Every structure is written in structure tokens, then in C-alpha cells.
């Protein structure tokens, strides 16, 4: 693989942070905020999303049928359908269409060179259509303003929906002043837009062929749906004599009725508008007259176009010719791939990019491949351009899962990223056996994985060893020569504070204070005192960090539960597989999931509730285990496991007395950062509710992510990006006297940036003595 070295990658990211991040963040975060608002105002949002997804599932399932159906429909209307195997095939076909148009009707406009106007289409970006046409001596003009700016700048799109999002108004003005040398230099967006309207209007009037993409294609009526705000797609489609629509085969949906949820959703997810300005449903060739600006004296309704024949004669109604090019280019193989298939449900709204903190920081030039960008780009690039293109940026997905709630068709984007990462791991060429990490990595992975990944993927074993030798291991790990080695061998940035391992793990501490028998006695005493009748028992899951690093939050959780009358057990339990998953080590995670299931199932059988402190481990159990365990086992674990504050909330709701806990006076300001996966699981609200019931005035953070997400922020190539993202969060919470966070990484990140203690909410709540 032609992969960049860590330091090259770090340089590239630093450069993008400086040059493009700000402009991307400015626009993408506004769209994201508007999406939240519009989603919030849409009563039937969930049913729309479910419906949209199920339509896509059905359509991809019967895709070959739909191709036949649309062919019949379009041909019955007098148009042509061409299914192109790959980029070369599609490009050759389109060139051919242009040549035929020219040889039959001559070149439109004053120019000798045939010309094409295009409306924004990622699919034509994917096949590099412009280059292919230009190689055939055909002029191509992009008419979407953003795409046109890129064409003038000789740049590439950085966002699925806002292709020129990385350029500021000032940069565009400078570019245009250079290129077009206007009498009065352009300054405002208004002036730039007016100029573009005039310039592009002329190109459209003189074009021989109009090319558009298609957001959806209704198979049984042959209807192309174009969703735009500018109106250029309409102009490209209805002005020239010939219209070519190019769409990936996945854009087919069965009937007109299936279109409705998508029309309702696409603008909401993309920009947060209730609906786009123009939703054009064309079943071409349309009745609309073609506009022959070369013959300005004849009425547009005269049968139109450059043909003198009356409508309908040669299959060209109103002189218009229509071609639908359906592109395969790997999509039919994706359809057969159980893990990548979901990618085909994507409606390219860009909501996943807008909800992604890493995307905001570096834009699609960092977080993107040859064509596509953002979280879902991994699936698209792996499918249409191959794994190598996906490998370039796949690690920028931290699996934070914030895109999961954003996606209008409920694609599990983080899972696609995990799967592709796993496949990339398997194709790596690192030494299969590695002296540095071998003893620490009892994983199941085949050789060839990046050693940093193996190290972090096996962090549980590392932590256990480090704890057994603490404090020597901590002292050693922070010694300069060791940091240098860790950086060189594992890519762990030396600027990052390493976790400090405790000699006494949570499990040891719990055992030393009398284990479950003592816990039962304590809980019973508390229950008698408070007269609460709560009859539950808890198994507290000692995740790697809680067990070896952040034992205080584990102790606080135990004390809190006991004080509320609930006896606790803290057995030594297997790893959840979260660490392995985040490195794309699926078979290791799979084995760990089975082990944890086996260990917990007996506890659940005995009527105990599983309580988890670290949200990312809970997310593994509640989300990813669906992919790793048999359905029944998954359901069982999911319904019987809870997040710690969610559980406390449940206890308070069932009569436990909050006054037993450490309470505030109602005035005490607390800034709370939930955790990305915890928010995706809708578990932010219970923590807020508990804090408020215990007398804390809680303010929640709006930033999507802390930028740490597990091992991500430790990696040298991502250190600065992680800090950039973290600063957005830190600036939101810095004024509060107390800051709490549910996730280990979030807490670490905030502690570094704010230079003060950031604990888990349960540490705030825990009674001081029991």
C-alpha cells in the first residue's frame, strides 16, 4: 500500500487544519445545527427514516428487476437507458451521445467546439467524466456554483453536498478577480453570484447537451428526481436538445409513492431546510419545449429545438432527446457484500459529514478518498475505487457514532468503517511477529497488522501487566527514552499524557473490602435506614480503564449503588471487545464478546442487572454485539445492561432517596459532557436528570465529540487534530466551576485542555462515607 508515513500524515493534517478546517467547520456546523432543529420539529421523523430505509432495502434487493422496469418505462417514453459497467464504459457512452447530437444538429452557439453543461453530480465525479469529455474535445461547464468555483480553481470537492465548502468568500473573490479580471473587483457573495448567473446562463443557452445526476430514479415511470436549491439542474435538463442523466444503479426506487419519504427527508438531513427549493421530477423526454437560443426569433412553443420536425416523429418529443446512464462501477458487487451493501442505501445528503467533529476539522480533503468524503466515504471508496482509496482516510473515523442518528436511512456508518479497517488490516504488510508487542497481544488476528493497532486493540492485556508492575510501569512509561520508543514503534505521541495505572485494581479493592457479602450487608443497612424497598442486585462491569486506571469512578459507583440499597458484585470479567473493534480487529472482538456473554449470562440468570460505567463498552454491548452474537444472546445482554447514571435514575424513579447522595444546593453550576456513543444511545438525558434531581444546575455541551475517542488522540498523526476538536469542546465548558464527563477519553482530553480535574458524574453523586 502506498500509505503515507505517520509524520507525513501528521503534516498533511496540520496543513488542512490550518487552511481548510475553519471554512468547513463554519458551514458544516451550521447545517448540522439546523438539522437538529428540523429533525426535532418533525413529528414523524423516526417513521420516515424507518420507511426510507426499508424502501432502499427492498429496492437494492430487487435491483436487477428495477433495471428492467426502468428500461421499459424510459423506452416507452421515447428515451434510452444504458447500463455502464464502469467509468470508461459510461464516459465513452456519453461522448458518443454528444458526438451524435453534433453530427445531426451541428454545434450550438457561435463556437466551433461542442459544449456540455453539467449540474452537480458526484457520480460523474466518480467516473471523471469531465476529463474524459475534454479529452474528446468537448467543453464542459459545471453550473452548480460550488462545482464551478472548483472547476475554475482546478480543485476537487471537499463535501458531498457543499463541494467548495473549504473555500471562503474572500478566497473565491480573489480567485475570480484573478481569472476574470472584472472592471470592478468582486467582493461580496452577491456580486460573485450575479456574475456567475450571467456567465453560466450564457453557457447553458449555448450548450449542445445538458448532463445531470439524479437523486432518485422512479423505476416504473422512468422519473428522474433532482433536488437542488439553485435551479441549475432544471436549466440543464430542459434547455438543450439532449439531456443525459447519469446515476448509480442504487438510485432506483420502485414507484412514485416510494419517493415521498425521501423528498421529505433529504433537505432536512442535508442542510436542515424543511424541503429543498426545487424538487424536480422529470419523466423525460418532457413536453417542455427545448430552447434554441441560436434561433431567437421563433416561438419556444413551435415544436422547439434545432429540429424542424414536429414533436414525436423520431422519438423526440418537442425535439428533445433523453438518455439515462445507470452506472454499476462496483455497485452490483457491493450488493452481494453483506457488510458493504448498506452503503447503497445512502442518499448522499452529507449529514454524516456535518455531524462529524473530525470532518469539521479537516474537511473532505483529509477525511475523504478519490471522490467521496465523510464517514460513509469508506464504504463508497472501498466499493467503487477499491480498498486502497479507503485506507487513506479510514482511521479518521473514531467510531464515535454521532453520524448514526444523523443518517436519514439509518446506515450503521461506524460499522462499515470497522469492517473496512479489518479488511485493510488483513492486507497490511507489517512483520507478522513483532518483538515489541507480541507478548502483549493475545489477539486472534492474522499477521500483518500495524503494531500500534495491535497494541491498542489489546489494551486490556497491556493494562493488566502495567497495573501489576505499577508504579514502576508508570514511571517507566513516562521516561523520555521510553516515550521516544513508544512514539517510534507504536506511534504514541509523546505530548500526550499516558494513563497512569493503579497498583490496586477496582476488582482487588472490591475484594479487599469484603466482596459481595460485605456489599450486601452495606446495602441492607442503607435500605433499612431509608425505608426504600428496592430489590435489585448489580454486577458492575470493570472495564479496562475503570479497573486499572480510573478506579475512583468505579469505587464511587459501588458506594452510590450500595447507599441506594443495591448490593454490588465486581467480578473479574473479560474485555468487551471495544478496544479491538476500534482497531478493526473483528475476530478478536468476536471472541471477546462471546466470552463476556458467557460470563454475564449466569449473572443475568441469577436475576442481576449489569451496570456499565464506560459508555463505549456499553455501546459495544448495545450496538456492535448485534453483529457479533446470536440474536437471542445479544437481546438478552442488551435488555439487562445499563449505564451507571441511567441505572441510578431508574432507582430514584422507583423510590430511592436522592438526599442520600452527595447533593448540591440547586445553584451549583456543573458543565456536563456526555460522551458521543452515550448520546447516540439516548443516555445523556438520564444523567442530566439525576444531576438535576441531586441539586446541580447542569449545562450540557453541544460539541459532537471530544476528539479523543479511545486510542485515536494518542496517535502521533492525529494528535493535533484531536486537540483541535477538543478545544471546541473545552471552550464550551471552561467557564463552569465543575466539569464532569462520562467517558474516560473525554475526561482525559478535558483534563489536559482545562488543566483541572474532570471526573465522572457518579463521583459527584457518590456519598462520601458508607
Amino acid at each position, binding site marked *: 500500500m502506498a500509505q503515507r508515513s505517520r509524520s507525513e500524515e501528521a503534516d498533511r493534517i496540520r496543513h488542512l487544519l490550518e487552511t481548510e478546517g475553519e471554512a468547513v467547520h463554519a458551514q458544516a456546523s451550521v447545517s448540522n445545527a439546523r438539522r437538529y432543529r428540523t429533525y426535532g420539529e418533525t413529528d414523524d421523523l423516526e417513521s420516515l427514516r424507518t420507511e426510507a430505509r426499508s424502501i432502499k432495502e427492498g429496492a437494492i434487493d430487487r435491483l436487477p428487476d428495477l433495471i428492467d422496469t426502468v428500461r421499459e418505462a424510459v423506452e416507452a417514453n421515447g428515451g434510452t437507458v444504458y447500463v455502464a459497467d464502469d467509468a470508461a464504459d459510461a464516459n465513452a457512452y456519453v461522448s458518443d451521445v454528444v458526438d451524435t447530437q453534433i453530427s445531426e444538429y451541428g454545434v450550438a452557439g457561435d463556437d466551433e467546439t461542442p459544449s456540455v453543461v453539467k449540474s452537480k453530480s458526484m457520480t460523474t465525479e466518480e467516473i471523471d467524466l469531465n476529463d474524459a469529455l475534454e479529452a474528446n474535445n468537448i467543453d464542459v461547464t459545471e453550473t452548480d456554483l460550488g462545482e464551478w468555483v472548483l472547476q475554475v480553481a482546478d480543485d476537487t470537492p471537499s463535501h458531498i453536498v457543499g463541494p467548495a465548502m473549504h473555500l471562503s*468568500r474572500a478566497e473565491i473573490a480573489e480567485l475570480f478577480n484573478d481569472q476574470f479580471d472584472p472592471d470592478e473587483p468582486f467582493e461580496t457573495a452577491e456580486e*460573485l453570484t450575479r456574475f*456567475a*448567473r450571467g456567465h453560466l446562463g450564457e453557457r447553458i443557452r449555448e450548450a449542445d447537451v445538458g448532463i445531470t445526476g439524479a437523486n432518485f430514479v422512479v423505476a416504473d415511470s422512468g*422519473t428522474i428526481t433532482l433536488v437542488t436549491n439553485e435551479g441549475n439542474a432544471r436549466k440543464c435538463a430542459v434547455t438543450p436538445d439532449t439531456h443525459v442523466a447519469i446515476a448509480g444503479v442504487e438510485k432506483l426506487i420502485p414507484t412514485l409513492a416510494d419517493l415521498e419519504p425521501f*423528498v421529505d427527508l433529504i433537505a432536512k438531513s442535508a442542510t436542515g431546510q424543511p424541503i429543498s427549493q426545487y424538487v424536480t421530477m422529470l*419523466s423525460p423526454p418532457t413536453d417542455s419545449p427545448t430552447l434554441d437560443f441560436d434561433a431567437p426569433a421563433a416561438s419556444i412553443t413551435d415544436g422547439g429545438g434545432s429540429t424542424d420536425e414536429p414533436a414525436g416523429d423520431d422519438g423526440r418529443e418537442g425535439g428533445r432527446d433523453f438518455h439515462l446512464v445507470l452506472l454499476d462501477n462496483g455497485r452490483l458487487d457491493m450488493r452481494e457484500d453483506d457488510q458493504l451493501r448498506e452503503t447503497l442505501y445512502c442518499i448522499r445528503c452529507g449529514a454524516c459529514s456535518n455531524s462529524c467533529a473530525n470532518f469539521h476539522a479537516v474537511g473532505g480533503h483529509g477525511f475523504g478518498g478519490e471522490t467521496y468524503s465523510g464517514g460513509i466515504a469508506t464504504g463508497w471508496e472501498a466499493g467503487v475505487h477499491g480498498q486502497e482509496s479507503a485506507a487513506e482516510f479510514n482511521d479518521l473515523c473514531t467510531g464515535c457514532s454521532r453520524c448514526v442518528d444523523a443518517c436519514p436511512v439509518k446506515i450503521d456508518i461506524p460499522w462499515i468503517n470497522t469492517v473496512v479497517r479489518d479488511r485493510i488490516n488483513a492486507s497490511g504488510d507489517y512483520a507478522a511477529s513483532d518483538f515489541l508487542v507480541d507478548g502483549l497481544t493475545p489477539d486472534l488476528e492474522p499477521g500483518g497488522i500495524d503494531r500500534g493497532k495491535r497494541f491498542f486493540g489489546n489494551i486490556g492485556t497491556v493494562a493488566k501487566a502495567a497495573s501489576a508492575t505499577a508504579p514502576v510501569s508508570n514511571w517507566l512509561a513516562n521516561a523520555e527514552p521510553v516515550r521516544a520508543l513508544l512514539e517510534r514503534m507504536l506511534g504514541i505521541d509523546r505530548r500526550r499524557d499516558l494513563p497512569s495505572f493503579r497498583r490496586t485494581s477496582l476488582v482487588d479493592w472490591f475484594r479487599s473490602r469484603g466482596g459481595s457479602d460485605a456489599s450486601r450487608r452495606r446495602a441492607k443497612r442503607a435500605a433499612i435506614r431509608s425505608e426504600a424497598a428496592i430489590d435489585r442486585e448489580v454486577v458492575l462491569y470493570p472495564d479496562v480503564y475503570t479497573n486499572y486506571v480510573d478506579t475512583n469512578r468505579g469505587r464511587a459507583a459501588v458506594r452510590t449503588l450500595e447507599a441506594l440499597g443495591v448490593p454490588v458484585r465486581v467480578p473479574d470479567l473479560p474485555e468487551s471487545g471495544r478496544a479491538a473493534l476500534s482497531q478493526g480487529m473483528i475476530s478478536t472482538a468476536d471472541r471477546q464478546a462471546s466470552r463476556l456473554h458467557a460470563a454475564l449470562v449466569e449473572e443475568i440468570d441469577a436475576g442481576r442487572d449489569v451496570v456499565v460505567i464506560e459508555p463505549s463498552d456499553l455501546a459495544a454491548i448495545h450496538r456492535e454485539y448485534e453483529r457479533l452474537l446470536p440474536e437471542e444472546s445479544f437481546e438478552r445482554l442488551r435488555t439487562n445492561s445499563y449505564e451507571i447514571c441511567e441505572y441510578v435514575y431508574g432507582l430514584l424513579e422507583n423510590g430511592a432517596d436522592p438526599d442520600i447522595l452527595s447533593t448540591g444546593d440547586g445553584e451549583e453550576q456543573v458543565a456536563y459532557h456526555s460522551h458521543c456513543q452515550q448520546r447516540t444511545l439516548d443516555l445523556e438525558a438520564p444523567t442530566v436528570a439525576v444531576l438535576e434531581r441531586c441539586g446541580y444546575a447542569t449545562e450540557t455541551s453541544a460539541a459532537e465529540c471530544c476528539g479523543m475517542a479511545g486510542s485515536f488522540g494518542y496517535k502521533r498523526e492525529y494528535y493535533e487534530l484531536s486537540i483541535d476538536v477538543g478545544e471546541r469542546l473545552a471552550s464550551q465548558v471552561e467557564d463552569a466551576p465543575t466539569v464532569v464527563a462520562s467517558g474516560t477519553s473525554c475526561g482525559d482530553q478535558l483534563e489536559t485542555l482545562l488543566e483541572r480535574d474532570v471526573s465522572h458524574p457518579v463521583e459527584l453523586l457518590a456519598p462520601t462515607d458508607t
Partner: protein
Amino acid sequence: MTVDTVGRFERALEGLEVGLERVPAADASGRIETIAQGPVVGTPLPFEGVSLPDSVRTEPTPAELEAARTGITPVRFAIAEYGTVAIESTADGTEPIALYPDRHVAVVAERDVVPDLSAGFERLADGFDEGRTSVVFATGRSATADMGELVHGVHGPGDVHVIVLEDR
């Protein structure tokens, strides 16, 4: 509809900075005359008792279309929920006339203002059944943020007026 669908339509349009006027069919021509800025092109209005003002050029040439400042077209139906008008592609040029000039005046019969998108899709499906299969849902004014800020009137109209015929 017992709820005030036209009122809802009007509020949605307000948010889009599109004006709405309710007029009796008899007064429509006069109102159009005042709103339209010349040169004006249009397609014939299929509502009983409503005709286009004399100054409106129907069946324009491409040159007239390009030069026009206002385009007047009927719309088949409107969707109150989003402030959407449904413009059909017809042989008399409704689509380009609604699209090219900077000002679009859309005329709709009150009974054709439907409450929400679902009702709009029902009307759309009826049209498809009758062979009218090319329709644009236009909502507000053409817009772009690609030049760094939101600007209206890019490729399509930057100014839209809706006339609701209250007795049609």
C-alpha cells in the same frame, strides 16, 4: 379542510419571503399587472374568468424569454405545509417561463392548495395517472451559499409571488 390551509400556506411562504395574495378571479388580471415588472412572459391561465394582462407575451421567443423580467404561470397545486408550488412541464413552456425570469408569479386556485406533502403526493400521483409526469416542486426562491454567504436568485428566480384565486 376545516383548518385554515391557505393561512398555513401563507405563513410558510412568509418564512420564505414569498408574498401571497388572495384575490377573486375577477381581480386577478389587475393584480398580476401591478406585480409584474416588464417585459413579462407567461403561459395561459386555465382558470375560468381569469386571463393574463395584455402586456404579457405568451409563446415567447427564446430572446424574449431571456429578456423577460417576470414570468407568469399557473400552478397545478400547492402544498401549504412547506409553501411549495407544483409547476408542470407543459408544451407551452410553463417550466422555462417559471424558471428563467428573475420574478415568478405563480397563480393557483384555492381548492388546489393542499395541506401537506402527503396530500401533494396524492395530487402528483393523480397527475401521473393522467400522463402529466414532469413536475417541479418549487419552494421559495432560488438560493445558494456556495459563494460564502446565502444569496437568492441564482439560476432561478430571486423573487416569487403567489396569487391564490379565492373563488376558484
